[in-house]
């Protein structure tokens, strides 16, 4: 009996992803040590659209990805690719797991821990740069890169805030979030009142019919 679809591409993609993740973890020893604490856990990600499965095995050497796993699973999560992306980038994974479209089976605490470790990987470029370029140029280049990344992060936050202010306050292209929420609350309240009015008029109509009859 032939098995499922040709696994070559899926296996190749997992191999590439695993290599990239482990290279990143090699540059972030703190995250790698944290990951080692989850070494007895197996996480199953069942993606329904597009359809594929990934099993994550964290360990002392980094993280191992597999397309097939026979054995106990610590946490199993099922959902669409967009739901997994939302969880991976979420600042509050607990809220995303509760409110998002993911179905969860098993222990959620190790999964949240894994998400937080992977989301906060802080790579130290200095070690490979020093090994390649030597102590002084390696350190200086690493310092420049650190400053550039820090400036980039700051600039991105500042730009996003200023753009937000321009759209909402200066150009009035879109109402501010609080105003929109207030408006939606009013609409909701209006909807409820209309429903109440409708049932009241219905009751009056029935009473009139009773008098006439």
């Amino acid at each position: 009996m032939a098995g499922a679809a040709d696994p070559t591409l899926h296996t190749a993609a997992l191999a590439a992803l695993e290599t990239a993740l482990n290279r990143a973890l090699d540059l972030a020893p703190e995250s790698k040590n944290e990951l080692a604490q989850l070494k007895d856990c197996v996480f199953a990600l069942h993606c329904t659209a597009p359809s594929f499965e990934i099993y994550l095995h964290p360990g002392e050497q980094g993280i191992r990805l597999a397309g097939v796993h026979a054995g106990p699973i610590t946490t199993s999560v099922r959902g669409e690719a967009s739901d997994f992306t939302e969880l991976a980038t979420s600042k509050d994974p607990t809220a995303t797991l509760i409110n998002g479209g993911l179905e969860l089976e098993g222990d959620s605490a190790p999964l949240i821990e894994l998400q937080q470790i992977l989301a906060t990987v802080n790579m130290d470029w200095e070690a490979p740069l020093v090994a390649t370029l030597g102590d002084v140029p390696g350190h200086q280049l690493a310092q420049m890169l650190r400053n550039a990344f820090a400036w980039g992060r700051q600039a991105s936050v500042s730009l996003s805030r200023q753009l937000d202010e321009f759209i909402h306050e200066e150009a009035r292209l879109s109402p501010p979030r609080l105003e929109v929420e207030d408006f939606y609350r009013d609409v909701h309240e209006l909807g409820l009142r209309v429903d109440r009015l409708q049932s009241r008029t219905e009751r009056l109509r029935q009473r009139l019919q009773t008098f006439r009859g």
Partner: protein
Amino acid sequence: MSEKDTTHFGYKQVDKDAKAGLVGEVFHSVAARYDVMNDLMSGGIHRIWKRFTIELSGVRQNNAVLDIAGGTGDLAARFAELVGPEGRVVLADINDSMLQVGRDKLLDQGRQRNIEFVQADAQYLPFPDDSFDCITIAFGLRNVTDINLALRSMLRVLKPGGRLLVLEFSKPGNPLLSRAYDTYSFRVLPLMGRLIANDSDSYQYLAESIRKHPDQNTLLGMMEDAGFCQCEFHNMTGGIVALHRGIKA
């Protein structure tokens, strides 16, 4: 020479007793450049096929694993990590040149704690009954003189519930892919062998031995006849390679 006493060696019919020696000569010749040639000939895809084999093996901590025709130890190295310090991996090969290359490579990588190296014939495995949780044979079964005898020998040394995984070249399902694969096998491979390893005959044998190897369903039937249950196979890269799995009841 009667039909019963002969077997194939590529497209040639040879005496059954002579095949092991002829195959041995091929592998003595290619052992030194085996890894380089594997990467070149498959474009590195053999690593993906082996990776899927490891995934499907279900090998875990403390397992005992036998890697037959283990060659340069690609699978054994990975299994040694998976079984941990309390587990056991045996890298077996009939060919001492291949075994030596594999042993040197793994020892150079610092892997010696849970790996043993055994020169053994797959048809007459020198291990007690019910010894292993998993047996793998990657790109080796087609070189065995009597495949049925080898399968029965593997069944004997597997523990009940243990898995046999056979990774081997097979028959592509698509006729166009099959034609392209034939051209590649019979024109490009011997040329690569001549240019890189200075040995076109061994790579001509490689292409011929693949064509003489049983196809997916025939091998599945042979595994069932040998006594394996829950037999299945996974085609990879359009059926150029197939991974068969059987369980010992």
